[in-house]
């Protein structure tokens, strides 16, 4: 019972738990998690993260969303993606039968902890083919600098 309560979307504890897992998985240096399932059940949108020496690339697989209803925020090193996907299923009745109802509906929020060198002032987000692509630039690495003595 507790499990289902805690994993309810939008639940604070579920968010905290998710956040903790994200922190462990994303940048904990554990490498790629090898899940037997292609998509973790219950988490919408699915998120992939890529890293380059200059940036962090986040991909949130969130199809069928009005870009106006999509929120991307950065606060103290945490990147959050939230929004809502409305169900367009009709009511089931004598004349309407629903055979499959697998697609996510409702409001969602996912939080990712950014690495320390992420620059919150240089973030770009685009929505294309149902994927939110967020590109976070890293700060320039501190270059050794020679100070001249006059």
């Amino acid at each position, binding site marked *: 019972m507790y499990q289902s309560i805690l994993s309810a979307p939008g639940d604070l504890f579920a968010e905290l738990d998710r956040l903790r897992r994200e922190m462990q998985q994303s940048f904990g240096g554990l490498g790629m998690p090898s899940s037997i399932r292609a*998509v973790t059940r219950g988490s919408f949108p699915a998120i992939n993260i890529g890293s380059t020496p200059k940036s962090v690339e986040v991909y949130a*697989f969130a199809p069928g969303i009005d870009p106006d209803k999509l929120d991307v925020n950065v606060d103290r090193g945490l990147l959050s993606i939230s929004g809502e996907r409305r169900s367009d299923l009709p009511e089931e009745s004598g004349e309407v039968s629903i055979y499959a109802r697998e697609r996510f509906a409702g409001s969602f929020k996912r939080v990712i902890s950014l690495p320390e060198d992420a620059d919150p002032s240089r973030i770009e987000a685009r929505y294309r083919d149902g994927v939110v692509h967020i590109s976070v630039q890293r700060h320039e690495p501190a270059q050794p600098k020679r100070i001249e003595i006059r």
Partner: protein
Amino acid sequence: MSDRKESAKQEQQRAGMTIMPAVDVVEDRTGITLTADLPGVPKDRLTARVDGETLLIEGDIALETAEGMEAVHAEMQGMRFRRVFTLSRELDTSKSEAAFRNGVLRLRIPKAEHAQPRKIEVKVG
């Protein structure tokens, strides 16, 4: 060098994995509507094909990647969606309509005219 080979191999393995897209399927009086989530699939990489009584939905994910990018976290493992459905004879696939927008495919397959519900008059006498 060996690292690079290893990652290329991993990438190949991942590309070979297929993901089953989530769908909604609704039937009403006049036909069936199928809605499928295919995020990351551009229009030209999507296939929705009816072959006999089989409906195939297939799409390749194409993401904009940055130079020298390494995956550090992946919930979407695999670069291809694929799902096959068996249709029934009363559906008229020649009149099906498809729309694909923001990674969501909507497919409407009407029932053949003769299969649509009608009231049968009961004659007395």
